């Protein structure tokens, strides 16, 4: 059976998923995902015209609460698990200057 997806597609999906994978991993995942997608192709047997998609298992309505402020977590608590911080901020590497094009530049003030 031809593979339903190529290594290049898996590379693209890995990029969208923000997962750095090496060539061996790409090869392995391509075959495993292909197996799974071939199985999932079962769903094509069904005629689903005019069937309403169901994203949620129970009949639900929107839930609202009173618009009142209440205490949240302190800055200290929020930062407690941060791998790198400079209170009251999280620290991250530079955002600009990479060539991936993945992060749009900030809107000028």
């Amino acid at each position: 059976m031809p593979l339903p997806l190529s290594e290049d597609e898996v590379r693209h999906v890995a990029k969208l998923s923000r997962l750095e994978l090496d060539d061996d991993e790409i090869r392995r995942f391509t075959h495993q995902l292909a197996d799974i997608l071939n199985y999932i192709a079962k769903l094509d047997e069904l005629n689903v015209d005019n069937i309403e998609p169901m994203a949620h298992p129970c009949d639900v309505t929107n839930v609202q609460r009173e618009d009142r402020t209440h205490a949240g977590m302190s800055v200290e608590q929020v930062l407690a698990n941060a791998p790198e911080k400079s209170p009251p901020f999280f620290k991250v590497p530079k955002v600009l200057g990479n060539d991936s094009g993945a992060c749009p530049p900030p809107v000028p003030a």
Partner: protein
Amino acid sequence: MNPTETTLLDLRNAIADRKLSANNAVTAYLDRIQKHNDKLNAFHQTFADRALDRADQVDAGSITGPLAGVPIAIKDNLCTPYGLTTCCSRILEQFRSPYMATATAKLEAAGAIIIGKTNLDEFAMGSSTENSAFGPTHNPWNVDHVPGGSSGGSTAAVAADLAAAALGSDTGGSIRQPAALCGVVGLKPTYGRVSRWGLIAFASSLDQIGPITHTVTDAAILLQVIAGHDQLDSTCTDEPVNDYCGQLDKPIESLRIGLPNQYLSDANDPAITAAIQQAADIYREQGAELVEIDLPHTQYGIATYYIVATAEASSNLARYDGVRYGHRSCDAHDLTDLYSRSRAEGFGDEVKRRIMLGTYALSSGYYDAYYLRALKVRRLIKQDFDAAFNKSANGCDAILCPTTTSPAFKHGEKTDNPLQMYLNDVYTATANLAGIPGISLPAGLDQRTGLPLAIQLLAPHFAESRLLQIARIYEKAAGYCGLRPTL
């Protein structure tokens, strides 16, 4: 009484009647964990000091409630503000939750003592507890076999009497399948019956927390405590909570049980088929009417589930970015690099596979073919159940079927073939897609292997009370509860 070889009900009563101190109970369980956990790897952390301190408060009368002094284990995807909350993933290896999951908070408010946190497949993704970053859990009935998953640590802990009961979570069968493989009771409540606040999200429209116990009565006691509305989870229903314990032994008039043709295939192990037949005979003897039913879309359950669950997972797990909490790669050059490396280093293979499958199913050009189609088939699956349970069309009160196709498989048997592992959920995932409650019950031991067998009962939305009553009928008549492995 031996505090570690009993039921939650008897243990609770003994402590309440001052026949046993909570301190003695907790000490006995901690000793047993000390003795057997190396062999099983059911717990990956215990809270001995905190547990003993709370036990002393129970004995002093300052902690009271329907679970006062009872040692309970919780799956380590439930947040606790003490100890670590890891999901058994490298990415959360050092994570300390600032808050407590509602289900756990309710247990503690009822006087329970959280004795430790149990092993799971990383982020609850798996059916064997072999995907944990902290090593696999072993089945107490035979350590060469898997305990099932993803709540395998919790079911192994209860089966081996390392805790009087446990909480698990069930996204596609992760309470019921390991309960079946370990010979204990596992209940997945209706979606929305128990708050998911503080349950680390895997697939938000499928995840549900539930009890793992030795008996149906114990499951009713725990559900009574953890069920109910919670403002912190907008999908948690305000449907009133029934008196599960009070209804349990009430007789049921004109009980109808459905046997789905699609679940009774030749693919099932003969011992499983025999267990279902025996259960059907038991219900007939107890006056129930057994009817054949059709759930024609059953065969599409796994394909649908693995699109819906992975799509939701790919979105939920986007939060692990190495910035706010969790593992952060040391050698990232820029922000995108930080995300990609932290996630590659922090997640295991199964989690990566599912994130990619879900990302693919949601990606431009494939959304309609995979995700949207799966959501439509999901409705067809739910409509199968609606028709089976439709009272105005002579529908049944519950469905009797296998939990799994076979008893516990061996370690390593399915780890190289993700699709084979996924097919484990064939009889359980449809209940999550439809949001209905299901329970797995011990059905004796397989004569050939000595491993536990199980049956499953499914019921309509919010029919937990009726489901537990029906389960109790089987449990009383079959006499399989109380079987224990030799460690």
